[in-house]
């Protein structure tokens, strides 16, 4: 990728717990920004990005890279007029259910604009793109979550995970669980 993530080894990736907790801190920060007009617009954007990561960590039960999240959030800001409102609405639904994972609250998101947005956020993280079309925005290739689901078996094309002629192995049954990521 031209836009390299800062942390291919995941050191900067935030844990779900850490992300959810920091979301509250940053929410307070963005509240402060709204009370202090002298604070820069960038700070408010950082707040929205943080809020987006909070939502993402509710919708996806995995560790997520904030750099990728920032790119998705930036695209979402232009794509969805009610971006901030939808973030708040879905987070509120999750909080009302005391959700620890997406399965706890996803069915409670009403069909329509909110559900479509939630599905798009999941789509963006798993495919690394804004759509399946030719003109899609690309948020990441190698960190698209689709590849994480199979990382114990197949390489991400163009990246080698083997050595010369060292890929002979038993076929992995479906009973082997999805890798933790």
């Amino acid at each position, binding site marked *: *990728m*031209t836009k390299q993530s800062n942390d291919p080894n995941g050191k900067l990736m935030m844990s779900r717990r850490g992300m959810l907790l920091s979301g509250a801190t940053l929410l307070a920060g963005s509240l402060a920004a709204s009370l202090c007009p002298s604070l820069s617009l960038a700070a408010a954007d950082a707040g929205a990005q943080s809020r987006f990561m909070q939502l993402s960590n509710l*919708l*996806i*039960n995995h560790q997520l890279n904030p750099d990728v999240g920032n790119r998705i959030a930036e695209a979402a800001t232009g794509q969805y007029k009610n971006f901030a409102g939808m973030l708040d609405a879905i987070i509120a639904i999750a909080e009302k259910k005391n959700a620890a*994972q*997406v*399965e706890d609250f*996803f069915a409670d998101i009403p069909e329509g604009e909110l559900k479509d947005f939630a*599905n798009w956020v*999941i*789509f963006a993280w*798993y*495919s*690394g*793109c804004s*759509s*399946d*079309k*030719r*003109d*899609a*925005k*690309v948020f990441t*290739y*190698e960190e*698209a979550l*689709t*590849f994480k*689901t*199979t990382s114990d*078996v*197949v*390489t*991400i*094309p*163009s*990246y*080698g*995970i*083997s*050595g*010369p*002629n*060292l*890929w*002979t*192995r*038993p*076929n*992995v*049954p*479906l009973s082997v669980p*999805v890798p933790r990521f």
Partner: protein
Amino acid sequence: MVTKNSADVVIVGTGVVGVVIAEQLLDAGHSVLMVEAGPRVSRAEVVENWRNAPLGVKGDTSVAYPPRPWAPHPTGAEKGDDAYLQFTGPDAYDQTFIRYAGGSTWHWAGTSWRLTPEDMRINSLYGVGRDWAFDYDTLEPYYVRTEHKLGICGPSDRTKQWPQTGDRSAPYPMPDLPFSPGEVRFTEVVKTLGYNNIPVSQARNSGMPYDGRPACCANNNCVPVCPVAAKYDAETALHRLEKKGATILVDAVVYKVETNAQNKIEAVSYYDQHKESHRITGKLFVLACNGLENPKLLLMSKDDRNPNGVANSSDQVGRNMMDHPARSFTVTTKDPYWSGIGPVVNSGIMETSQGAFRSEHAGAYFRYNNFARNRFVTFAALKKGLVGKALDEEIRRMTACTADIVAAHEILADPNNRLTLSDKKDWLGLPKPSIHYDVGDYVRKCWEVYSQPIGKKIAEAMGATDVKISPKFNNSKHIMGGTIMGKDAGNSVVDVDCRAHDHENLFIPGGGAMAAGACGNSTITMVALAIKAGDAMVEQMRGA
């Protein structure tokens, strides 16, 4: 002496055909000037282009190789009048090739099946198509030289080699690559049906470096680019050619082949990217810009002595366009196959391409595509509306339990399958190629009575719970015909050395010369013909 406007040997095109000939002539002490329509780029740039492309279009190789305005080539984004290739006839000749230094081996799979002795005598044996102008034994030494030049690995076990008929005069320079788990399972399954899925001979370094390039490490990205150059592509040879004295011009679009009063080739002219014209003279000329661009250039170059186009007194230039029409079976299986471990094509069933049935219908070659499946299944899995653990497991299941089986068919040389010059123009104002193409009854009958039933049996034996068959014939991107070879100058364009019948100092080697293409990928045969032509050119230069 070579300059930017003169050399002993002028080669139009920098793909594999031009590159191997250039090296033969350089090694024989002759000056060589190569002219490439498109740009010269680094491998890193190509890899970055591909990685930065959206997941939904990664199957379109042109995303890794965006065409320059002056050197258009087919892209998935352009349709209809905007497309570079214009189509007439019932089927689209929808090829993929690139106009970049290094040519289309940048994105080939590396698959290197030889023709069989029978493939080259299809008319004598089966009463269809055209025989080659020489036999397999004549071509065999050039196959060996190709295998060693490109670094083609293959099995030492004779029972696993292709072809089974005909002799091999030398072993492969490297052993065959190991099968992935999916290929092992596929091989076991088709064996129960009586079919042998054998290791493909492929231009990929197996277990060792070769020719200054590293061993394959299963990046599973042979198409559209090997990121480490473990797969041969002609770009890897360009620096070596320059060290040997070659001059390589890029962004130089040859638009005219000029004849003199003796009807020998005197010069070629090209436009640079600023639309300025330049002229290059030489003693021998090679057109090595693929089976589409070669006939286009010849037709564009018509003059008073050659009113149908250069090298076209036979009216065969642009005719007999061939490919390997393909149908795919996308199977969903109960048990995992896990495509995507190892190179993208690593085995095949070739024996189904041979038999007495060829008097009635085509043969077909079946292959298990070993591309990692994530990009093929992710969108479908996401559309199911799953989340969390269920989504993860569904993507994993679909990646493991889907596979593409491809049947590639033999097409006959048919003069009605023809490239002409379109009235549509490209950026330089040059005519776009227009191709009338019909896969023909020979192929269609095969599909109805032979290849489709076999494909369905294979799918069933694989334990398929769902099979989706492509609705039409797709192109295999194996451009053949167009400047067909023969001994009779009245019905062919080039002689047995790929020398134009009409012009003693013009060579047109490569896939265009193939009189019959059988079912296997054409590049190894193109290169064998190029080496044979190179020998003839060296010999001809001795008398110059």
